[in-house]
């Protein structure tokens, strides 16, 4: 089971990102737990300044904008 965290202040792009990851995971049949991190101190703790950012199993894989669907597939399959 993968843990995916979407870092962001709750703006529209962050919601879209979380939804995209959930949809991709369902399509691929990968078990994930998607969590939205909105606490700014926690976000900065990951070294992310441009949101939304994506953390997969505690590793930052993306920052600044909605990720590309192909990239999401790669993270989920890894």
């Amino acid at each position: 089971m993968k843990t995916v965290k979407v870092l962001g202040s709750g703006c529209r792009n962050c919601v879209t990102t979380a939804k995209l990851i959930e949809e991709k995971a369902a399509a691929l049949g990968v078990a994930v737990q998607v969590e939205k991190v909105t606490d700014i101190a926690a976000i900065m703790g990951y070294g992310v300044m441009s949101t939304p950012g994506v953390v997969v199993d505690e590793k930052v894989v993306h920052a600044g904008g909605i990720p590309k669907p192909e990239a999401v597939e790669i993270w989920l399959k890894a």
Partner: protein
Amino acid sequence: MFEVFTLLADWAAYRLLGLTPATKLADAVHFFVEDTSKIFVLLAVIVFVMGLFRTLLSPEKVRGYIEGRSRGVGYGLAAVLGAVTPFCSCSSVPLFIGFLEAGIPVGVTMAFLITSPLVNEVAVVILASIMGWKLTAIYVATGMGIGIVGGVLIDRLRMERYVEDYVWKIRMGAVVRTETDTSLSGRIRYAWGEVTDIVGRIWLYVIVGIGIGAALHGYVPQELFAEYASADNPFAVPVAVLMGLPLYSNATGVIPVAEALLAKAVPIGTVIAFMMSVVAISPPEFIMLRKVLKVPMLAFFGSFLTIAFILVGYLLNTLFA
């Protein structure tokens, strides 16, 4: 080079819709078709080309460039980098905290945050194609100048007192560089992604801006502006700025409105003051910045920009009278 858009608008308005030239509706339709086609084509081309070269700087890189510089260099550098770095205004808060955490002064950080929405490369090319290089140069210079002056004043007045206390306690993790694909196909995919991302984010502002521009162009008589918005009316500039405050659009979206106002002989200073007020100050931006700034600094920030835009308006109206 840009005649093709005029020809397209001629064809759409007079041939396709069969409108009679020089009527109100024909003028408005012509303006709408010409600006929509021109702005979206330019927007896509510029963003794609910049995406290919990956010249788009990330806020993380900018932080690295400014970190450790002296204040004197910092303000100028922050204004220049603000002009060339695109960032979503929803990132203002983490960006603000990230800069401070790196030891960058509050004023230098604010110089970046003021300049960034005002000046960007997409708006510069579109502005130049519609209004010429001279006007564009004036717009860019004043936009960066306001950022620098604002930043210097914020530090001089020791505004760091008015940054929320928790901000100083945040410790940031090591900044991560996510891997990038530098092959040609990787670059093209990235650049195309940038185009869909940016166009997807701002198209509505641009269409609304062009719609307002077209309506002004076709239906509002020039005499109305001559009566209320000429350089003879000392209240025209402050009223234009105050009208722009609650409105929000990005720089690209407000250009067609400015174009229509200029065509109605509204003086240049008044138009630029209005543009800047729409782009730089908006209620959502204030609500966001309230998370990191206490009320006195927010009040200073808002009043400084309002006054600066009014002064710029008067100055340009005097210089170009």
